[in-house]
Each structure stands twice: as C-alpha cells, then as structure tokens.
C-alpha cells in the first residue's frame, strides 16, 4: 500500500513543474507592463515610472530568469524587500479584487466551499441511488424514464438551467433569491457581534445561535446547489447503472439469490458494495469537477465565490488574477485526484497490485 502511495506521490513534482511552466508560458505572452502587477500594487500610468518598474523587477529579462523569479520571489534592489514568488504564496495583485490575489482567494473561498459541500451530498447520494434503481429495473419502464432523464439532464447548459430555476423560483414565486445572503442578514454577519468561526454562513449562524440567518443562507443556497447537482446526477446515474449491471451478472449474486436471501439484501448488501468501487473514482472526479461548475453557477446566481471572481477578472482582462485563480484551481484538482487515487487503491486491492 505504501509503495502505491509513494508511486502516486512521485508524479506530483513533475505535474507541479509542468503546470507552473504552462502558466508562466501564458504570463510570458503578456507585455512587461502587464506583468508588473505580479509584483506591484498600483502599476503607474506614466512611461518613466513604468520603465523604472520594468527595470527594477527584471520584467524584460530572459524568460527562464523571469520564471525563476516568479517562482521564488523578486527582490527589490533598493530596499531588499522580496515581492511575488508563488512558492512564498504570493500570486501578485488583483485589479478586480483591489487586493492581493491570495487575499481575494482567501476571502472568496469559503463561499465556494460552502456551496460545493452542500451540493456534494445530494449530488452523490441521489446520483448513486438513481443508478441502482435504474439497474435493478433494467430495461423496464423506470429504467427508460431515468435514461431519458439523464440524457436530457446532460444536454442542458448550466446557465440555461440556472436561469430557468431563477425565472420560476425567484422572479415568479419569490421563494429562493440569488446572491449569498439578504441585505439585512449580511449586515448582521459583518457586524462585530457576529463571530466568524469558519466564514461558512450556514455553520457560523448556528454557532452564533442565529437560526434566522441560517434559514436565510439556506434559502440562497438551494437553487445554486440544485444547479450544480443536476448535471452530475445524470453522469453518476449512468456510471452506477452500468457498474451495477455488471455486478448483478456475477455468480456470487446468483448464489446469494439461490440460498434464499431477500431481494433487498442481495441488492443493497451484496451487489451495491462491489458495484460502488468504480463509482468512487467517478464521484471523486465529479467532486473535483465542481471547480469548473462553480464558475458558471456563481456567475448566474451572482454568488460571491471564487468562480464568479474568475469570470469577472477574465472579462476585464485582469490576466494576473485569472492566472492566479487557475493555478490555485489546478493545485486543488491535482491534490483531489491524488486523494481519489489513493482511496481507490484502499478500496480495491487489485489496483495497487497492478
């Protein structure tokens, strides 16, 4: 088992190097002036001042030199102060966020995590359940209905789905508003009396004993959570269904039936536990893919997370912010995939012996 984990970990440095090189390749396509935001908060407009900054931070040095400085930090020759350096956790300055990119990520991340975690539970639970139901009723009416449901679900763009539910449940019925909190609630949350333990509204509100704010936060979360979940239901349903169908054909299932176990026990105890092995990977990958899903969902619902920040900065061509968020996103993606792989190795012994 350890050897398997070590083997997986050995890929990480290569990936990290490749990812940073690819990101820097895009940075190197910018002009030295545009690159200045990596190290300087307010890039001046005056030509003389710009030239000074370009010289100071070596923004027209050879690309490998600049790459190195971008990785470890760039020393100000006069003050000796080190600026930038992604290894030091500095991704440069964000025009859109009006602070450092890392600060914006810290500020916006809890909102995205809150949405993704809330979406993950119904997404995986219901997706797998529908898949099992579909397989058990193979080629019967219910299976056909679910098949159509999954193909149609797969074909609806996230933004069309999001706008459609907003049209019905917000514009028409007024039940579930967009954004993250109502005005009165965000005033309470931002006041000093309200302790921000986790930055996650649904948890903080309960810890502060403010049930009204909890309800408000949930009301704002319901539509984006459904939007994030529905697309993945379709996918998980199909993977679970085909894995379940494979399992149900195994001899040990026939044996279990033959020795007189109830239908329910055979399906939910004997079959599902083995059928879920490949589903674990897919569910993990789906969770990680929420990273992409949140960009559109947060934009549609005007939800102040990482995804909507990325979209805002991309439209205003604030490339330093965009690249920072993308770098951060790919770190999460790589680590997430690693966790999924290791989990898979633990669940299925065949994999790690490979």
């Amino acid at each position, binding site marked *: 088992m350890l050897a398997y984990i070590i083997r997986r970990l050995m890929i990480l440095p290569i990936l990290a190097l490749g990812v940073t090189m690819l990101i820097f390749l895009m940075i190197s396509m910018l002009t030295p002036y545009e690159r200045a935001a990596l190290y300087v908060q307010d890039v001046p407009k005056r030509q003389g001042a710009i030239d000074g900054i370009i010289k100071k931070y070596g923004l027209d040095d050879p690309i490998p030199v600049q790459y190195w400085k971008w990785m470890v930090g760039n020393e100000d020759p006069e003050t000796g102060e080190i600026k930038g350096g992604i290894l030091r956790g500095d991704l440069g300055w964000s025009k859109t966020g009006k602070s450092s990119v890392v600060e914006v990520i810290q500020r916006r991340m809890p909102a995205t995590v809150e949405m993704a975690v809330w979406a993950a539970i119904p997404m995986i639970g219901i997706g797998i359940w529908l898949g099992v139901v579909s397989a058990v009723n193979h080629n019967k009416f219910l299976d056909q209905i679910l098949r159509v449901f999954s193909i149609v679900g797969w074909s*609806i*763009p996230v933004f069309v789905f999001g706008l459609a539910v907003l049209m019905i449940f*917000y*514009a028409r019925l007024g039940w579930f508003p967009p954004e993250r909190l109502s005005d009165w609630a965000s005033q309470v949350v931002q006041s000093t009396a309200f302790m921000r333990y986790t930055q996650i509204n649904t948890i903080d509100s309960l810890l502060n004993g403010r049930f009204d704010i909890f309800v408000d936060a949930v009301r704002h979360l319901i539509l984006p959570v459904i939007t994030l979940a529905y697309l993945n239901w379709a996918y998980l349903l199909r993977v679970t269904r085909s894995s379940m169908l494979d399992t149900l054909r195994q001899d040990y299932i026939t044996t279990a039936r033959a020795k007189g176990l109830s239908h329910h026990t055979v399906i939910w105890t004997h079959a599902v536990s083995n059928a879920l092995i490949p589903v674990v990977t897919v569910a993990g990958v789906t969770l990680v893919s929420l990273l992409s899903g949140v960009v559109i969902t947060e934009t549609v619902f005007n939800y102040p997370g990482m995804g909507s920040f990325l979209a805002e900065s991309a439209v205003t061509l604030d490339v330093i912010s965009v690249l920072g968020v993308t770098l951060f996103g*790919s770190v999460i993606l790589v680590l997430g995939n690693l966790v999924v792989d290791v989990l898979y190795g633990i669940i299925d012994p065949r994999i790690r012996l490979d």
Partner: protein
Amino acid sequence: MKVLKKLLTNPTSLAGILLLIAFAGVALFAPQIAPVPERSRDPQMIPRDGFSTTPKPPSEEHPFGTTEGQYDIFYGVVWGTRTAFRVGVVITLITTLVGLAVGAIAAYYGGWVDELLMRITEIFQAFPYLLAAITLSSVLQTIYGRGEAAGLMFLAKLLAFLTFGHDLREPVDPIQLSVLTGMIAIIAFGWMTYARVIRGNILAIRDQEYAMAAETIGASGPHILFKHLMPNAVFPVLVIASMDIGSYVLSFASLSFLGLGAQVGYADWGQMISFARNWIPSLATYWYIVAYPGITIVLFVLAWNLVGDALRDILDPRLRRGKGAGI
C-alpha cells in the same frame, strides 16, 4: 451500414437524427428563413431595431421578441445554428486530430517519447477544463488587443479558413476573431482524452495475434500502424468523438455566456442568453430572452447526445452482451 440501420431503428437515436436534420435544414436555409437586412456587414451579426435597453415581447415583426439593445431573437436563433455547427464541427475535428497524432506517436514509438507525451498530456489534464479555457481566452484577447503575435494570427487565420472558409491572404475580421479565440481556448485543453484513449487502444491491439502475425510476415512498421492498428483503434474513437460536437457547443456557449466567446450582437446562442444576466429579477416578464435561445441550445445538444448514446451502445460490445443478459 449495420450501425446506420441500428441507429435508424432505435426510436431515441432516430429522434436525435431527425432533430439534427432539422437543425441542418435551418442552418442551410437561414437566408430564406431569416433574411439578411441590406446594409448588414456580416450576416452573423444580428440586426437591431432601435437602441432601447428594454427587451420587447414577441410581436409580428419580431416573432421571438428582442433582447436589450433590440437585437432580434428569431434572427439570432436561426443564424446561431450556423455558429453552433461551425464551432462544434471544427473544434471536434481539430481536438481529435491533435489527440490522434499525440496518442498514435506515443503508442507507436514507445519508450521516452511515450513517457514525455503522456506526461505533457497529464499536465494539460491537471487544469480544471473551463478555468483553463477561460484563462487562455483572456490571455489571447489581451494579445490580440495589441495587434502583434504573428504566430497566433496565423493560427487564427487557419482556423478562420476551416470555420468560415476565410481567405488565407486576407486579415481576420475582428468579429470572427472573438469567436476563434474561444475556439482556440477550448481546443488547447480538449484533446487529452482522445490522445489517451487512442494510445490505449493501439497498445491493446498491438499485442493481438493479427498484429503480431503481420509483423512476423515482415510487414513494415508504418504499414502495420496504418493498415492494421489505426482502423481498429481509431475508427470507434472518431465516431464517438464526432458525437462530442454537442458538448463542445456547450463549452463554447459557456464561454460566450461569460463574455469570452462571440462578441455582443453575434448570432450565438450563449451570447444571446448572456443578456438575461441583467434582467434576473424581472425574468418572469422577459422570459423570452432566455426561453427561445435556451430551448434551441438544449435541443441541439440533446440531438447529438441521443445519437451518441445509441452509438456507444452499438459500438461497445461489452454493453451489447449486457443487453441480452436481462436481470
């Protein structure tokens, strides 16, 4: 032929095929269905009827209503079909070709070439797809804004030739350039799955008896690759990739929706729906700015998925065996 017969007898895939034929008809006869106004610079630009910021409901003159800025929704939906087909087909074609080349070279040469190409593939896969596409298209737009980067302009021209039949000697129209930027971003981060699948298929087939037999009787390397390995390993991938057109149209529409694909006023469904972002509290009144382009894009993608789903069943023998087992 057997595959085609199966597709035509299966009710869901038949529905998909009929839908696709209908869409192709709309794309082909767009000038007859929604005539281009006389002073139009580019038929893909939606004509405007005034400049009022409030959308207008469907009327005799504008069957699907108008968006803010008075862009005619019916015209956009009809001509958007052309954009969807062009964008989907060209992106699929190029991503598959790139994947095919990378995967086949890796599998054929093996050793360090394989190792290197597969690591590069993994690096591209280490980016969240949509985030990477957004990033690249914002970087490219910055570069285009400067009017330099000859290499990229050449790439854009080549793509313009494939997509719009653009004359290679002429500079690319800025209207088309914004579409091409989104396409390049999707292509750059879309080829990896094909490379891996094709490589895997070739490796699996290479060890089969008929490939070894060909080698034994002295067939040359390229002969085995093109005559024996490619058809069996690649053909199914090509067929399935062609059904990914729908999902590429979705990706492109997402970029347009965010404001990173087609420019404002271009006949593109994602771009048209993005107007709705300004009208969310009053969508109950202005439902038509989402409903018409929204339903169209869902039907278009659904059509591809219906055919693709049936095709996967037919081409995957493992699934086919499963059909008979019955639970």
